[in-house]
């Protein structure tokens, strides 16, 4: 008896392809506690590493006394920079062309810097041994302010760079100067500013924050002395890059290095770089011939691993009297901490900061970023954003608000006037980016209508007129453009490796499939969404497509997951690999159906003979035939690999709107409404997109309202636990409203642009826009983050409006 014939709609639905909100394949294991994270890895004979860290921010190491620690039963080794020196591993190259100390060599440069490691039978003994290592320091003057760092008589922080006047990105002008990087046309911008009727300027600090993933960093390094093979499980967002670095550092051939990123509990840029802990665990395993585990605690993670932001920015806009922006100038002093360990494409020491002309049609622009050493931890990673795009978007969105206030033009109106028009795409920005597609005005009006902007402004005016109102009301609006999907190899590389990404798909004889990728999911749901792309391209149900990532021995080489690059780059590689398979499948189908390829039409999951509906072969039929009876002259099997080098970045955009009520008594702010419209091009899984946006908005809320790493003048980090560092819970998190438009990327195989970082990039300036707006009638044009109750109360008091 034949099964009932399914309708095309039923067959389409069964695929759960692109556009389907299929449930996340990852969640079944996570919600049952069956995830397998680095710290879950246990190997026979495994030893444990712990790190002795500097209590001071700047000092010379006079002496390290190991004896007491070595005397503790169960302690195998205590290693310092002097022990790593013969291996030339006491310093390591950073992704930014600098070097970073693996273990402090003669000097410590920031509080909690790695000074020595101990290896012990278990982590309890290791913790006791850390306490028993005595380090004697001579304290040196501490430099925490990047402007002070550049003063002529500022203390020399990096003695190892003495006499090195040429850095990785040009000349060094001062002993604490790293680079000065410029983009745009300075002369053209200066000309515009000289003749412009209106100019505005604003200084702003984007404070140092930390991505603070729930899972801290760690690894298990296992060197097999007999085979000469090194296997390391590691919390890495870029396992292939790590394999290359480890091979270069250790001298173990890359073919004998295997890096495995198991389940990763959030990355947000924090897990891109190579940390001393990884290097030390690997060295220890090679030296001792035993597996070695290292797991950070929370304080170590916040204090010593990669921070984000710390940009001191001066923005300037030139405009006409009626608010048409003519020119943009930006000067940034970037606090990079003790070592330049930013994770950026090699040619871009300030990342893609030059996206700072934003969504606006500006004819002349220039930006300059000066990188500076201070006594803080290294980093400068992209915290849930593309490289330095959060800083850029914050700058331009703040400046447009400042200009609107100066000219007394509504913040929606000034955006209408300056947004790049739909007919201008592809649009070349004054910094040379070619924006692929956008329809900003349609999205803006959609949001303003949805929130009833006019009514909110009327309500705000009433509150402003009422001195007894217990609250101030602020309205925030941001119209942002992201630049993601790094990136074209002609522009973007990391350590010389182009920023392509890759996919290998194998279709099994029975019609199921496995896809392996060069990226690695950390919560993004790749195992769910990647399968959907293949399902739509090849007509195989998502449910029978396995997606594997993170094991360098099985996955094709890729640059990893950060900067919203997975869908724009790896997602394209998937589609292209699938299309290679599709082309071969068509040949097999033609052979099986005894027609020519040109007689075949593709429909959902099968090739049909045109004009003869009953004659068809499904992808499952074809898969079996590929292994059983391929046409003459065609290789057996059905698989493909594709390395995708994107022709351009993609440019997702969004319109974000926020209403905040500020308690005039306490300074507490309450987010009454947050409306986020995102356009990420083609939408693969709407449910996952919503989840990504909720997560990004929540992290944006955290940054704007409370995440700052506060230091005292001695360089002590004052808030390095989750008691002080602000991770919002469900109680604090506002209720999010999401919306979308779809403007596909014209150059991407499936039109997708990437989405996970837009909500972070876009929401942060929206919160500031709203908080400042609450004070705008008092003449306030800018307030630095974080907008804590305490800081807002001080502002209320300064303005004389506190209850």
């Amino acid at each position: 008896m034949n099964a009932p014939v399914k309708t095309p709609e039923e067959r389409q639905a069964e695929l759960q392809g692109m556009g389907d909100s299929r449930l996340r394949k990852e969640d079944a294991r996570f919600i049952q506690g069956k995830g397998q994270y680095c710290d879950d890895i246990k190997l026979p004979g495994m030893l444990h590493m712990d790190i002795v860290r500097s209590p001071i921010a700047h000092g010379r190491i006079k002496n390290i006394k190991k004896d007491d620690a070595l005397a503790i039963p169960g302690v195998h080794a205590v290693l310092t920079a002097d022990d790593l020196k013969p291996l030339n591993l006491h310093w390591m190259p950073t992704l930014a062309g600098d070097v970073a100390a693996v273990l402090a060599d003669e000097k410590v440069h920031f509080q909690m810097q790695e000074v020595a490691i101990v290896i012990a039978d278990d982590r309890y003994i290791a913790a006791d041994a850390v306490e028993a290592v005595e380090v004697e320091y001579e304290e040196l003057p501490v430099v925490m302010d990047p402007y002070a760092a550049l003063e002529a008589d500022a203390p020399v922080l990096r003695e190892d760079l003495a006499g090195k006047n040429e850095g990785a990105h040009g000349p060094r002008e001062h002993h604490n100067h790293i680079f000065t990087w410029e983009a745009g046309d300075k002369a053209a911008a200066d000309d515009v500013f000289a003749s412009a009727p209106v100019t505005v300027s604003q200084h702003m600090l984007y404070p140092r924050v930390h991505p603070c993933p729930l899972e801290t960093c760690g690894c298990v390094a296992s060197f097999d002395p007999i085979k000469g093979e090194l296997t390391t499980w590691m919390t890495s967002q870029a396992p292939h890059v790590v394999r290359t670095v480890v091979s270069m550092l250790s001298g173990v051939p890359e073919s004998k290095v295997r890096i495995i990123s198991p389940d990763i509990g959030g990355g947000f840029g924090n897990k891109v770089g190579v940390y001393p802990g990884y290097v030390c665990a690997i060295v220890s395993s090679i030296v001792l011939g035993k597996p070695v585990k290292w797991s950070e605690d929370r304080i170590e993670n916040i204090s010593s691993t990669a921070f984000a932001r710390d940009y001191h920015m001066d923005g300037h806009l030139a405009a006409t009297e009626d608010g048409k922006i003519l020119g943009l100038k930006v000067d940034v002093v970037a606090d990079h901490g003790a070592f330049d360990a930013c994770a950026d494409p090699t040619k871009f020491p300030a990342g893609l900061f030059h996206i700072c002309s934003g969504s606006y049609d500006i004819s002349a622009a220039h930006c300059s970023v000066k990188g500076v050493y201070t006594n803080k931890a290294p980093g400068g990673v992209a915290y849930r954003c593309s490289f330095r795009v959060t800083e850029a978007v914050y700058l331009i969105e703040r400046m447009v608000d400042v200009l609107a206030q100066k000219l007394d033009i509504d913040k929606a109106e000034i955006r209408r006037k300056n947004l790049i028009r739909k007919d201008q795409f592809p649009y070349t920005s004054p910094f040379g980016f070619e924006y692929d597609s956008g329809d900003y005005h349609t999205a803006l009006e959609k949001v303003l209508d949805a929130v009833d902007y006019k009514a909110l402004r009327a309500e705000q005016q009433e509150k402003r007129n009422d001195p007894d109102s217990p609250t101030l009301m602020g309205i925030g609006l941001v119209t942002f453009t992201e630049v993601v999907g790094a990136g074209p190899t002609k522009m973007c590389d990391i350590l010389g490796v182009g920023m392509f990404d890759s996919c290998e798909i194998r279709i099994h004889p029975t019609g199921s499939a496995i896809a392996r990728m060069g990226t690695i999911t950390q919560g993004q749901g790749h195992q769910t969404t990647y399968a959907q792309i293949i399902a739509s391209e090849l007509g195989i149900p998502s449910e029978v497509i396995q997606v594997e990532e993170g094991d360098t021995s099985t996955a094709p080489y890729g640059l990893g997951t950060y900067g919203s690059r997975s869908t724009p780059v790896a997602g394209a590689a998937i589609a292209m690999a699938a299309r290679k398979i599709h082309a071969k499948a068509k040949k097999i189908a033609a052979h099986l159906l005894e027609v020519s390829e040109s007689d075949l039409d593709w429909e959902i999951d099968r090739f049909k003979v045109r004009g003869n509906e009953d004659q068809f072969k499904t992808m499952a039929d074809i898969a079996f035939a590929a292994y059983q009876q391929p046409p003459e002259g065609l290789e057996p099997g059905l698989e493909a690999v594709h390395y995708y080098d994107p022709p351009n970045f993609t440019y997702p955009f969004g319109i974000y709107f926020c209403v905040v009520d500020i308690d005039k008594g306490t300074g507490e702010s309450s987010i009454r409404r947050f409306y986020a419209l995102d356009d990420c091009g083609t939408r693969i899984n709407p449910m996952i997109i919503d989840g990504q946006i909720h997560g990004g908005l929540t992290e944006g809320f955290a940054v704007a309202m409370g995440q700052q790493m506060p230091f005292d003048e001695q360089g002590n980090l004052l808030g390095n636990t989750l008691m002080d560092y602000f991770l919002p819970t469900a109680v604090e998190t506002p209720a999010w409203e999401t919306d979308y438009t779809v403007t596909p990327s014209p150059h991407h195989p499936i039109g997708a642009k990437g989405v996970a970082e837009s909500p972070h990039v876009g929401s942060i300036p929206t919160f500031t826009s709203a908080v400042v707006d609450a004070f705008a009638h008092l003449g306030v044009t800018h307030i630095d983050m974080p907008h804590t109750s305490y800081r807002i109360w001080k502002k209320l008091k300064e303005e004389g409006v506190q209850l």
Partner: protein
Amino acid sequence: MIPPNFEYHRPATVDEAVGLLTSLGSEAKILAGGHSLLPMMKLRFAMPEHLVDINRIPELSGVSVVGDDIVIGAMTTENAVIADPILNEKVPLLPEAAKLIADPQVRNRGTIGGDIAHGDPANDHPALALACDAVMTVVGPEGARQIPASEFFLGTYWTALNDDDILTAITVKAFPNGAGFSYRKLKRKTGDWATAACAVVVALSGGSVSHIRITLTNLGPTAIRAHDAEAVLSGQTVTDELIKQAAEKAMAICDPAEDLRGDVEYKTAMAGQMVQRAIAEALSRAN
């Protein structure tokens, strides 16, 4: 984040526990819910050689009515306080305020007695105990004794407890009929201690205040009872102006420590805000 070695003891009775404390001396610490002690041990700020775990002493937990008294076992967890029908009926301030302590996971372990005995002015129960005129039952080598809350809190991390004492119960009376109450706590986020907090219990008679308690959390070296603020309202028909005056009196006795939550000026101002709001809310509930 790993403490040094320590010995763990788990007595089954209060007498056994007191015996252990007496024999082990000042190197022993009582382990109640552990949510203050264990983090300090993990950071190696506290390094007791012995932990005396009193979690398995059954008579230390639960709420009972004894005559006019409501007796709360010191090891009653915050979540048990929140759920307890006797407290919800007779001393509703305690369950309501307990909901503002830490987070649900901590409240599953954290105990009312641990919160009080720790002597931390940032903890919430000391001010609540003052607002409820609580009496502490303390058992030491010489037997049991009663200490009123007003004599219990001596300084930061310093209470009337000796090293070999155990706080076994907190006794309170039912609120007067028709009493209103409120606990207003300003904090940065869930799980945080108060930037400033105020507890108020008020009863009215013929429209004027017949009973009033105003107490403060984390605004000095110990929880504070604001007697002068109470005096402003006592016997009066309360007006907005009187509430403001009471708040000013309360602010005048604040002596908070500056930290990341704010400076002295801010915390003192927030004390004023919390006092005003707590009085207003308590009055709105009184009848």
